[in-house]
């Protein structure tokens, strides 16, 4: 019998959680309640005495100043309906884990196997609410049926003696470990059935390749020697499916693509990745010669560039889209703590210094009916923001840069990009820290969290297969504290030289981490039964491919093994020896001494057949709209400032700790009231140096509807101009591409596959050309290729989206520049040329148009401009600098003004333009590579001299009155109070 401890606030203590829930139930569901109060429930399934349970309830589980508690009796009263929400079996319960540890400290003895603490929350609803409404509240807001279950009890039904009785969410089932053999000597249809039934996601070509290998007689000979039958085991087939998955092998980026452009010219591209991404970096590094600052690119979990003589910087950005669609909180939390492990798993390991996050959502105010199984965009927004908040804040990593992009099509699949930078010494214990190598005989040691059924087969599962007692497999919840403990431990182990290689367990679990590490030696022997499990009942194949979080795999030399494990134990971290790395040439897994997988490494890593994809570019039929220039351009500007893609994200930014580690020199919010939108972040990672890391990004999916080539070029340019705006050195900067695409392979489900594949080719061509032109090497990246929603006849494909992240250096953070205007009288300069480029712009979108004149980047002039701007910044001539992006010049002027708290008077006649432009085009065109700068009047000449021969115009000056006054040839286009503009900009997401 489990103990139930209920903890609640005293009656006169405010319950902010309950208040927030009440407010959000109103916002999300339109249900008005009188009151919501909350109680925490700890269900303690352990052999404890009554006195011990009392002590736990009175001590660590409740706060004597504001709370009271009850043991095995209810605390709930004064409600109409009670909803208790708890986890389903097997779901990570971080609070339960902490409560168990606390009780162990208290009693001085550990819990026995199978004993646990399970947490749940009781929501006491008061108001006009019945069971049906409560069910709507539970399923529509409080709980997520994939990971949680709930009980609903009315006041009349409530048992005053016992309270709510719930089933223990204990993982049950008496599955015996079993290894099945799979007969692959079958017809094609049966082969595909095996792939589908097993959720292997292997296509026929791949299944046939495996079949050919499996039925080859020489193959069976090698197997009998290790006691295996001729047929493949489930462990082997799962290992192949994992290793050959799109996620791990990037089959689309490695495919041969037959591409035909609009003029019928054909070419065959052998791997987009090798041709355009690796190719760009190779050519740029060669051109840079001695100035090449790349240290480790593409081969590790993250890219590494030089920072200074002693330190290097590591950067990676990942996506976690499908899990975030299913469980926004857990998906996003797992996303951020997952990318954290990439930094820790690069080279010999690095110390994490900051996070970045970029989200793509549909509007949280979405009002149309939602297709089945999609969560409302507002829930996704809330859950993702909170997941990243907990993941970043609890890990002690500042979130310094990000953005949120809105498009209705992201209702089908939200995009959640999480990035992490870290820092490592150039040389550690006499060797380059960014390199690592497993030695034959090193032990395979897994450390951190335990293995459960989390993340098996990722997102391919469906909820219908869940039943009581079966653990949830696809959705994972990150545990930042277990990970933080592990990182604290690993950095010490690293510095003491206790291991020779490290990598993280992310997608594919041990199969992936051990499989990849063993490429250094050419084989391994892994004992699956030695792996620590969260609960019994896992099959050997599940242990191999589980994606349970917070785990790293290390190669530990035999002579260091004891010291490594001892250090882990002292620091409350689990570390277990699972086997050894060998040079056998085989991927060798055992269970209780018996071989369960024995595959040649060569076949596993090199056997996947290359896909062939056909791509044909037919430019979409688009046209420029015809409409008169709006009479009130001030009103148009106000509307633009209130658009979701432009408006203030302050309510989200403030929820992220952006200052921990005391290195954030240019913060996300700047200006006189600490609320202006920064272009990029500057971070000082070392206390004894003023050198800084600069990070920014570019993302413009709205241009993809016209041409992904220019979308990509604009994203690169946006990232770089944000970067130079704050003072980032254009000669010492690297890029990182994250492609999120819809399925580009033509099939029955995707009849427009050739067009989508052509969009992908064009984006890659631009990626190569513009990175080479700007001299910006790519150091790492990722792709997520199936961002479609399809149920029944409804298909929603996201707009092709690339996040181009930028990381580089500023020599002295004291020269960094913020975007807010500083003093009245300063001169306002516009750098760059303005063209008739409103296609895909926020302005056109506000008016309901797409247009055809997509912005185009001229890299040569842009690069010269960025160099000159760097020179001006180094000489201290730039008082403020802001990039022009969504909403063009008008929005940039307004943001600069209200962030600084001063007005501006500008005259547009002197603008450098191409052709004759309308007033609204001057104000709202999104021509790239432009920046607004303010300069002290006395420094006018020195500043202008640096831009001799470039597109530069002095438009006006900073006013000491709070008005934005814009004229053209003396004719006033708009004259607005900057406080009104600021209000329009701040209002939309203020309350979220």
């Amino acid at each position: 019998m489990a103990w139930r401890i209920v903890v609640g606030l005293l009656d006169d203590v405010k319950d902010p959680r309950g208040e927030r829930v009440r407010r959000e139930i109103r916002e999300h569901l339109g249900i008005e309640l009188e009151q919501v109060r909350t109680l925490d429930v700890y269900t303690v399934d352990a052999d404890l005495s009554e006195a011990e349970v009392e002590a736990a309830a009175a001590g660590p589980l409740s706060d004597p100043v504001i709370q009271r508690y009850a043991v095995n009796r209810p605390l709930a009263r004064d409600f109409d309906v009670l909803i208790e929400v708890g986890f389903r079996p097997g779901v990570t319960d971080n609070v339960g884990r902490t409560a168990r540890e606390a009780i162990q400290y208290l009693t001085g003895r550990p819990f026995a196997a199978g004993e646990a603490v399970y947490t749940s929350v009781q929501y006491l609803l008061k108001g006009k609410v019945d069971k049906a409404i409560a069910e709507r509240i539970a399923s529509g807001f409080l709980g997520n049926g994939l990971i949680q279950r709930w009980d609903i009890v009315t006041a009349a039904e409530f048992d005053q003696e016992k309270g709510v009785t719930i089933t223990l969410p204990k993982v049950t089932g008496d599955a015996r470990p079993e290894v099945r053999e799979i007969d692959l000597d079958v017809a094609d249809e049966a082969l595909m059935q095996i792939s589908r039934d097993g959720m292997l996601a292997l296509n026929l070509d791949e299944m046939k390749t495996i079949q050919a290998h499996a039925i080859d007689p020489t193959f069976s000979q090698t197997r009998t020697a290790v006691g295996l039958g001729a047929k493949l085991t489930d462990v082997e087939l799962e290992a192949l499916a994992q290793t050959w998955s799109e996620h791990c092998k990037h089959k689309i980026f490695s495919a041969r693509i037959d591409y035909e452009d609009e003029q019928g010219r054909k070419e065959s591209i052998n791997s987009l990745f090798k041709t355009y991404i690796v190719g760009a970096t190779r050519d740029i590094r060669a051109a840079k010669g001695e100035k090449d600052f790349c240290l480790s690119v593409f081969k590790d979990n993250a890219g590494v560039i030089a920072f200074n003589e002693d330190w290097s910087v590591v950067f990676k950005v990942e996506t976690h889209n499908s899990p975030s669609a299913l469980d926004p909180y857990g998906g996003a939390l797992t996303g951020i703590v997952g990318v954290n492990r990439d930094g820790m798993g690069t080279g010999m390991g690095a110390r994490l210094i900051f996070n970045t996050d970029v989200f793509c959502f549909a509007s949280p105010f979405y009002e149309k009916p939602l297709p089945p199984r999609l969560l409302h965009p507002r829930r996704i927004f809330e859950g993702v923001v909170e997941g990243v908040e907990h993941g970043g804040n609890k890990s002690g990593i500042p979130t310094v840069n990000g953005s949120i992009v809105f498009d209705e099509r992201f209702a089908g699949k939200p995009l959640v990009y999480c990035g992490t930078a870290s820092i490592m010494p150039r040389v550690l214990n006499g060797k380059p820290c960014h390199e690592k190598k497993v030695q034959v005989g090193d032990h395979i040691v897994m450390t951190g969290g335990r293995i459960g059924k989390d993340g098996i087969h990722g997102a391919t599962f469906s909820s219908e297969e869940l039943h009581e007692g079966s653990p949830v497999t696809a959705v994972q919840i990150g545990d930042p504290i277990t990970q933080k403990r592990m990182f604290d431990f690993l950095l010490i182990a690293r510095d003491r030289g206790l291991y020779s290689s490290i990598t993280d367990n992310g997608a594919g679990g041990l199969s992936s981490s051990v499989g990849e590490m063993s490429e250094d030696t050419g084989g391994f022997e892994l004992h699956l039964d030695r792996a620590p499990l969260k609960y019994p009942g896992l099959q050997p194949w599940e242990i191999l491919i589980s994606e349970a979080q917070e785990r790293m795999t290390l190669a530990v030399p035999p002579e260091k093994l004891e010291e490594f494990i001892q250090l882990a134990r002292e620091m409350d971290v689990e570390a277990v020896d699972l086997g050894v790395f060998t040079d056998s040439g085989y991927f060798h897994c055992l269970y209780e001494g018996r071989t369960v997988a024995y595959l040649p490494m060569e076949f596993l890593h090199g056997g996947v057949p290359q896909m062939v994809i056909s791509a044909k570019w037919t430019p979409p039929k688009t046209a420029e709209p015809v409409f008169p220039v709006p009479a009130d351009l001030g009103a148009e500007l106000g509307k633009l400032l209130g658009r979701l893609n432009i408006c203030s994200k302050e309510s989200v930014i403030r929820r992220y700790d952006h200052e921990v580690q005391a290195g954030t020199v240019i913060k996300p919010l700047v200006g006189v009231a600490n609320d202006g939108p920064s272009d990029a972040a500057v971070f000082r990672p070392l206390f004894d140096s003023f050198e800084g890391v600069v990070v920014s990004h570019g993302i413009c999916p709205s241009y993809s509807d016209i041409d992904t080539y220019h979308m990509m070029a604009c994203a690169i340019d946006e990232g770089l101009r944000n970067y130079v705006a704050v003072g980032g050195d254009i000669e010492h900067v690297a890029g990182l591409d994250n492609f999120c695409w819809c399925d580009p392979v033509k099939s029955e489900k995707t009849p427009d596959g050739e067009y989508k594949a052509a969009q992908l080719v064009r984006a890659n061509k631009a990626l190569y050309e513009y990175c080479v032109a700007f001299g910006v090497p790519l150091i790492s990246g990722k792709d997520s290729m199936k961002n479609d929603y399809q149920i029944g006849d409804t298909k929603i494909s996201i707009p092709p989206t690339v996040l181009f992240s930028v990381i580089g250096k500023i020599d002295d953070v004291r020269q960094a520049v913020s975007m807010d205007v500083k003093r009245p009288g300063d001169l306002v300069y516009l750098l760059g040329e303005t063209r008739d480029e409103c296609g895909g712009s926020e302005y056109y979108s506000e008016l309901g148009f797409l247009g055809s004149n997509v912005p185009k980047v001229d890299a040569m002039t842009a690069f010269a401009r960025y160099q000159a701007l760097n020179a001006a910044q180094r000489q201290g001539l730039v008082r403020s600098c802001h990039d022009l992006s969504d909403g063009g010049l008008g929005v940039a002027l307004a943001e600069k003004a209200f962030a600084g708290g001063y007005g501006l008077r500008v005259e547009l006649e002197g603008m450098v333009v191409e052709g004759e432009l309308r007033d609204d085009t001057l104000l709202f065109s999104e021509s790239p590579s432009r920046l607004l700068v303010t300069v002290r009047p006395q420094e006018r000449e020195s500043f202008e001299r640096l831009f001799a021969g470039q597109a530069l115009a002095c438009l006006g000056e900073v006013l000491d009155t709070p008005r934005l006054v814009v004229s053209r040839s003396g004719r006033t286009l708009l004259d607005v109070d900057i406080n009104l503009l600021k209000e329009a900009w701040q209002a939309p997401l203020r309350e979220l």
Partner: protein
Amino acid sequence: MAKEVRSIVITGNGTNCEREVANACRLAGAEVADIVHIAELLAGRVRLDDYHFLNLAGGFLDGDDLGSAKAGANRLRHAPVKGSAESLADQLYRFIEAGKLVMGVCNGFQLMVKMGLLPALDGDYRSQTATLTHNDSGRFEDRWTYLKVDPASPCIYTRGLTGIYLPVRHGEGKFLVREPQVLERIEAAHLAALKYCAADYNAPTMDYPLNPNGSTNAIAGVCDATGRIFGLMPHPEAYVHRTHHPRWTREEDLPEEGMGLWLYRNAVDFIRRELL
């Protein structure tokens, strides 16, 4: 260790501001600023007795899963130190009795309050009489705050100061007491050394967001009657250089040294004067 000011920052289980706190101690003149994992203390290899200035840094002890710092306070109380009959808390009480200095920031402050180290009325460092709980907004918030110093406070850290500007970064910073007389005694003894106020540092405020969490009487920091034991929600270690200030690019007359450093300097000077 004759003439060295020795400071220690405890880390582990979710603490995350240890590096900048140690840096602040060093900048303030401490000769020693050791970052020590709690495992080292529990293993008995490092003892608090060898230090003068104990720093409990910000972070999320055990994820704040049971309420901020609750599990952390429980660990300190009960976890035994290897090779001895004492718990870490016993070492801590001895440290306080020896007249040494303890400063807790954010999660460190929450830890002190929940252990009973603050406000420690009548010199009782073991009973919890106050708490820090969820912000009225129900949200974690990162924002800069103005703090008015009580000139009559015994707090040795805020001596000579009138107001400071520091960031808060917390979800549970609302200071509350159960018994009204606890609050009265805190106020009467001037233990609430820091209170949230407006930019003029004039009067405490309950207005959001100047008072970012709805803290009772706008209390941001509390010391014990000796003034040596001190905790505060805002982060002094996050403002030790002008480039930490959110408006350093526009306020040209900012001094090189940040206001947060003053608290550490006062601590180090006190130790040099009184304890060495």
